[in-house]
């Protein structure tokens, strides 16, 4: 479904964000991009959803080349954007309608669905994301967690094949985090491809079967089963994702500053 080969990207041609990234993601997979701040996770997600295009290398989606040239074709670009939904790290940036209901209805209306179909999707998404009762609220009046849910609902209403989430757990309280982890798992079980970037090593096991680990040189340091990648503590230290206090207790990982005596 998603094939990235030797992809590289630098902001303004000077600030390297990605070097030589090769990654294949199949339909229905759940993949987490792991790495320290500034390693290029968000840039890769933006390339995957077509907000940015690679400086070099190739990106193919369902066999179609995704490049500046192909995205310049309005029909191709819109069909592609419909298939790949993107939830920004800061949900506030993607909410621009007057009410939560309008926000969710924006995509389906763009797709030319009938009013009844739009209403059905809005009602289903409100129900699915636990936003019932919020439909007439202005998005900027919502809490951080509710904004995140609204942003996800607005993207899901277009029924994308791939859902890309940039740091979805950022700014959420533990309860909403747990809820979102469960929800992403449900989406994967329903056949959606879910790609997330995260630092949360606890939740990543739950939301993704596969993990791709970036190092600080903006290259891919590891790609494999989440449990296997997370078990290599030395590698996690080398890429600066954990410190020397990180360790395991049974099946759980945690970090603290005291010793076990």
């Amino acid at each position, binding site marked *: 479904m998603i094939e990235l080969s030797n992809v590289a990207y630098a902001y303004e041609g000077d600030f390297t964000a990605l070097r030589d990234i090769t990654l294949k993601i199949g339909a229905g997979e759940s993949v987490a991009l792991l790495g320290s701040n500034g390693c290029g996770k968000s840039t890769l997600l933006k390339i995957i959803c077509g907000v940015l295009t690679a400086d070099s290398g190739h990106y193919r989606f369902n066999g179609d080349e995704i490049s500046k040239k192909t995205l310049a074709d309005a029909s191709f670009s819109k069909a592609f954007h419909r298939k790949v939904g993107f939830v920004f790290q800061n949900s506030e940036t993607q909410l621009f309608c007057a009410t939560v209901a309008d926000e969710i209805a924006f995509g389906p209306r763009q797709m030319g669905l009938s009013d009844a179909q739009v209403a059905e*999707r809005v009602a289903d998404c409100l129900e699915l994301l636990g936003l019932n009762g919020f439909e007439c609220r202005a998005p900027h009046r919502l809490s951080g967690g509710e904004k995140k849910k609204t942003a996800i609902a607005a993207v899901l209403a277009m029924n994308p094949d791939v859902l890309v989430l940039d740091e979805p757990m950022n700014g959420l309280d533990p309860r909403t985090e747990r809820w979102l982890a469960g929800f992403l798992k449900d989406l994967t079980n329903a056949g959606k491809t879910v790609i997330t970037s995260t630092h949360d090593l606890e939740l990543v096991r739950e939301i993704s079967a596969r993990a791709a680990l970036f190092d600080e040189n903006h290259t891919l340091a590891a790609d494999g089963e989440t449990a296997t990648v997370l078990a290599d503590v030395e590698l996690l230290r080398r890429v600066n994702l954990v410190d020397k206090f990180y360790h395991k207790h049974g099946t759980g990982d945690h970090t603290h500053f005291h010793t076990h005596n």
Partner: protein
Amino acid sequence: MPEWLAKTEEYTVNAGRDTFIDKSILALLGVIARLRLGGAERVSKTDAAFRVFFTLALIIATALAREFSSVFVALTFVTIQLAALPPRALRGTVKFAVIATLFAFVIVLPAAFAGNRYSVTVLPAKVFVSAAAVNILSRAYGWDAITGALARFRVPDIFVFLLDITVKYIFTLGEFTLQSVQALKLRCVGRTDRRYGSLAGVAGVLFLRSKTLAEETQQAMECRGFSGQYPRPSRLKFRSADALYSAANLAVIAVIIWIEVTVK
């Protein structure tokens, strides 16, 4: 999970072009890139304070000049500086200066029909000098260096602070707007008349965001005991590059003054 969400959807695109959105994204990317690159193009080894002072002096001298030969001297001096720029900075500076010059030329063109050939030749040349000089300055240093130079000239703290915070907000809100417009583009997967209404929504969200940021900054400043003073301590070092640059500028300004005083 609703039934429609579990199905792969076949969707026929009824495409309309999003030229305005694409152009907005490009424009925002340009502004953010310029601010992010601030100083990275570093085309000068001189201290920012000298650059700021002499750029201002050259612009004032050129603006006050009445003789074309004075303006020609300034034009020659700026052209020599342009020739020393790296290719990317040169392209950007010339493009900016030429657009400003053409704009000035169009405005003063009616004067030519009234027989005032002086305005049609001299005014656009003055605009070129000013636009190129300012652009060379902005490409040579980051904004922090330029505002730091202003602080050295005893420009009031509050003015320097406002300038600093304005540049910071242009960058922060520019990034925010860019993401909003990109999000709009990602969700514009068909054709509706509501697209431009959504752009108004983006503007509204930006306004609310800037209000929140301003309130939070004010609260943070109060918490940190802001008393209106904004010191930017820095030591002025006079190096050989500064001496050379100052001498060249002083010579050009002296020649302009000499021409204005002697040529009648």
